[in-house]
């Protein structure tokens, strides 16, 4: 019989999981470099990229599982999430970190990552995500852009016999199974820099068109927020690194 405790206070292995699509010329390379510093393995699903994303992922030693889909599944996002989850748990991880291809953990978070996972009191950790806007120096903060005001569950303990499920939604599916909500978690005052909006005005406009095209009636998200992507003068706040 397996006597391994299901929650370990030392020696936990951390696997990062990402779904990516056409990220070769954006932040993916830096993200993978960054993750390689503090995770044990990286698991990636390439959602039918047409650029060099797949090859870029292959070039990182810590990417131990990599699947490229022939046809994009993004229109059924929960299935894509489910597929990534199954791939990630096939690495027999102790903890999983759900990362986007344009997200960076602040240095303080990376320093504390092992402390966060080598304990047996909570099974997930929430972080504050900051939406950088138009560049890498400022983040956006107004009533529609305040994701950093709450915690987002990004780091979870993998418990093999727990029941995991994603809500069967086509868009805006949480990155990690919803069932973690019933387990105790820890809300860390640690930050994640999201560069998805740290792009030019033209690129933001393209993203706006993409959102409007995939969800024209605001069924999965807020139309008001989609519209606010085009705001000329959003409130921006300068990012300050916390000292280590």
């Amino acid at each position: 019989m397996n006597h391994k405790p299901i929650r370990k206070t030392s020696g936990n292995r951390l696997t990062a999981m990402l779904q990516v699509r056409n990220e070769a010329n954006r932040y993916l390379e830096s993200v993978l470099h960054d993750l390689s510093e503090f995770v044990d393995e990286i698991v990636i699903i390439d959602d039918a990229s047409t650029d060099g994303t797949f090859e870029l992922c292959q070039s990182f030693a810590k990417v131990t599982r990599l699947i490229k889909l022939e046809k994009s599944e993004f229109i059924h996002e929960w299935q894509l999430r489910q597929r990534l989850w199954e791939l990630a748990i096939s690495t027999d991880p102790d903890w999983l970190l759900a990362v986007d291809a344009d997200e960076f953990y602040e240095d303080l978070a990376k320093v504390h990552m092992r402390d966060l996972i080598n304990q047996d009191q909570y099974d997930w950790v929430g972080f504050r995500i900051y939406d950088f806007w138009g560049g890498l120096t400022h983040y956006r903060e107004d009533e529609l852009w305040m994701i950093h005001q709450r915690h987002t569950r990004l780091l979870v303990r993998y418990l093999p016999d727990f029941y995991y499920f994603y809500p069967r939604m086509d868009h805006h599916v949480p990155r990690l199974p919803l069932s973690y909500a019933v387990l105790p978690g820890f809300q860390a005052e640690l930050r994640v820099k999201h560069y998805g909006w740290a792009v030019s005005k033209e690129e933001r406009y393209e993203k706006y068109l993409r959102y409007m095209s995939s969800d024209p009636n605001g069924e999965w998200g807020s139309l008001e927020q989609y519209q606010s992507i085009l705001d000329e003068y959003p409130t921006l706040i300068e990012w300050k690194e916390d000292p280590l």
Partner: protein
Amino acid sequence: MKYMIFCHNGWGDFSYKRMLKLLPDRDEVLVVGEVMEKDEQDYDVCSISLTNMLSLDLTEYTTIVCSPYWLKTVNSLHPRYMIALLERCPDDQDAEMWNKYSELLAAQADIVGTASERIYLEQCLRREGIFLLSGESLLTYGMVNHRHDTLFLNDYEMIWFEALSSMNKGERFEQWTSVQWEIRCKYYVDLVATYPFHATISYLAATYLYLLGRSSDAGMYLVNSFEQMVLHDYLDCLESHYRFLSSMAAQVGDLEKAIRIYAVSVYSEEDQMKVIEMRNWLEHGKDDLVKAEIFRLNEDYASAIRTLKPLNTSESKSLLRDNYVQTYRYEDVLRLKEEGSLSHEKDSEISLVDSLLIRGTIHMLHNRPYEAVTAILTATTVELSALRWLSEMSSYEESAERMLRSIAYES
């Protein structure tokens, strides 16, 4: 067959009047307290005063007891059978005391009925001989002639009638429990097909399938219920929903999985020690102990008791005693102790106090106040906190007397 009804708050509040017409082998039916003349005729019952009732030989009667506060009186009269009808705690009563003594009433009764499905299911996981006295079926399942009336029975009435008939003949009636579970199970499984996203309906379907021993089917409904709870932000369901899966795994005999599922839901050091203890048992081939303990940890004391009863080790007897304590089967606790089968280390000083308190409670409920107080005072010499038992007994006595006074005044 002679029946005697002991209502909680008088005849007016008795909610099973129609059922009286369905009592099998019905001869005389007496109601303690006042009954309106018209009701006496309509329901073919006779009112009897408290004083006159006390002068009767109740060993010939089957008592129908609707309040835990009657327990002391009824016990001391040694009725032929005791039928308990459990009710939710009335607004004007202390819930903790009502619930505890309702458990004691259920434990002492030969058969238990209730119109509350919640109480019914809780009791099904605690003991045998429990029947639901409500339902939704519009079909007729049989008929009974009473004087000039022909009464068409719905499902639960037919089941209750058959179970009581078996009891009167001294026969077993457990088969009717299964019939009722089958009917309730089908009802909820059909309802899930109509309302697939309703957490409670799926949970109830899972529960009845589990009671029927069909855990391999039940899991799917439980998981659906868990999903719906989480999707609707009812997040306090780790123990109520997820952990229930460990009982299902135990029921199908996958004890390793049962322990692992249980382990996911525990965080305290004490509970983690329990996981280690169960793993050790499993390693040493004590599968039944693991199975029973998983049942108990999921509050399925009835299955735990069924599993432990045939075993004959000191460990199994000790676990059996714990389950008896949890289900207020106090006479069984003392019987085990007197058999001298408890030599396990757990059966130490603290259980001496427990057994004295249990003995005191039994004496009190059999109207032996001197013996009750002596037992409890002896317990206080080991543990002073046992004194609170005296205060609880006194509160129970007060509530019982208040009820008796109101009945005496009525009649």
